[in-house]
């Protein structure tokens, strides 16, 4: 019986994950067209090997040439990576103390605090980003507060700027950084830092030389968990960014919904996937090498 367990989910995943990806790849290699399918070339199954030959010959790299040639797409790809990398770095810096504090909170209260971190993470993403509009807009709460304290005289333009996108990314993905880090830190033996203190290390040095190196797997997991979806983020740049905020998720969206260029949108999807697979492979290899050196 155990041999048949995977069958149903396997078929489902093949049909609704693998097949769609292959179709996307195929359509990204179709001739540019703004209408509905079918997109050329069409694979002629009845022609056997010859059909494959003709199909492969007719594949068109025009969409990828467009992506490479037009600075819009290059800039979008670069700025997606830049936004994601910067926000990940900020999240590591902000998330580590929060996760550390969470792990050191009284055992009785810890489940409550963890639930408090999880609740927003389950709450509507769209609504949590929308909430920032009211805070960041020129006549919003942040500007009102700053003017009231006298720090600034006239409202700052924050909404529709890269700063707003960074705030949104940091806010939305904080739980993704804190939770895996907390998982690692809460399992750390507290006597390790006590031993460091006993050997004369200040709390800061104990944190830097003992806790942080041991928390590394959590930091890596959290960074990947944040970086990957951020590269393809759509809602945050769309709601908080300006019209000039270029991120690939948004470009894909507008190629599809506004320009109705499905083959080009597919090519953007392929590019996005490549950009995401890259860091995953790099990280995994780096971790594997570390593991071997450490042994």
């Amino acid at each position, binding site marked *: 019986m155990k041999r048949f367990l995977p069958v149903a989910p396997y078929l489902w995943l093949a049909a609704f994950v693998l097949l769609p990806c292959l179709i996307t790849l195929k359509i990204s290699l179709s001739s540019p067209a703004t209408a*509905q399918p079918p997109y050329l070339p069409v694979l002629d199954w009845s022609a056997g090997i010859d059909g494959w030959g003709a199909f492969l010959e007719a594949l068109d790299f025009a969409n990828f040439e467009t992506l490479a040639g037009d600075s819009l797409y290059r800039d979008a790809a670069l700025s997606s990576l830049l936004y994601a990398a910067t926000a990940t770095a900020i999240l590591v810096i902000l998330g580590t103390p929060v996760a550390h504090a969470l792990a*050191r909170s009284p055992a009785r209260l810890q489940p409550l605090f963890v639930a408090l971190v999880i609740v927003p993470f389950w709450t509507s993403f769209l609504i949590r980003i929308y909430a920032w509009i009211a805070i960041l807009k020129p006549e919003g709460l942040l500007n009102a507060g700053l003017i009231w304290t006298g720090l600034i005289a006239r409202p700052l333009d924050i909404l529709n700027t890269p700063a707003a996108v960074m705030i949104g990314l940091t806010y939305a993905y904080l739980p993704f950084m804190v939770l895996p880090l907390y998982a690692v830190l809460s399992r750390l033996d507290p006597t390790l830092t006590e031993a460091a203190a006993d050997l004369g290390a200040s709390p800061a040095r104990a944190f830097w030389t003992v806790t942080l190196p041991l928390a590394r797997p959590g930091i890596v997991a959290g960074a990947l968990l944040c970086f990957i979806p951020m590269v*393809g983020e759509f809602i945050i740049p769309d709601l908080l960014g300006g019209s000039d905020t270029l991120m690939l998720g948004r470009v894909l969206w507008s190629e599809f919904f506004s320009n109705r260029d499905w083959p080009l949108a597919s090519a953007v999807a392929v590019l996005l996937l490549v950009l995401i697979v890259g860091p*995953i492979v790099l990280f995994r290899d780096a971790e594997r090498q570390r593991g071997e050196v450490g042994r």
Partner: protein
Amino acid sequence: MSPLNRLSLGLGLAFLYAPIAVLVVFSFNASSLVTVWGGFSTRWYGVLLNDGPLIAAALVSLKVASLAALVATILGTLAALALNRSGRFGGRGAFTGLVYAPMVMPEVITGLSLLLLFVGLGLDRGLATLIIAHATLGLGFVAVVVGARLKGLDRSLEEAAADLGAGPLRVFATVTLPLIAPSLAAAFLLAFTLSLDDLVIASFVSGPGATTLPMRLYSQVRLGVNPEINAASTLLVGGVTLVVLTASFLAGRPSAGVQGT
């Protein structure tokens, strides 16, 4: 807890909750200007209740989320059992990759590729395509939640049942299933919330007549801040909080024979 830790935790939680608090507070604002406090009022909740399209969208979302979560829970549990109990089988590596792929793939890619599939198959876009897409998204999360529980389950419990004469089906029905039931409930709720929350994938795969709540909210949010949305958000946040607390209670309920969570 040192003062530094207390400060970090306090600021972290404040950062997470401030925007939500703003929404909740201003949903009770009598003024239609979002940043001007016009006194306490529930008038926006009244407007909300009379907003036919919004309520219709919410009903679509609930229908899609329950069915998608049901499918995701069944398939995800089978996947978790396959990954934890079947040992080696052909294409195990590819299977693992496919289970986890929808969790890490950007939603725009999942949405676009599924849409291209549905168009290729000639399926009309609507409730069915939405349910398929959301079930696919939830499957991996269910597999992770149920898989964690299965991993923590003492294998000798199932072996003991087999040793006492129970065939594989009876072992599953009388030992495995009762012991993983809380995680099934938690996984169902997770898949349910993921579906309820999704805007991007739904925008691709849904069709006319199947507008979900996030799609409806998004079309209004794009026009700017709106107190009625604040009221809707408050209700949604309240509902989700309730669901999360239930789920974490279910998943975390201590039970002998299960190590860890």
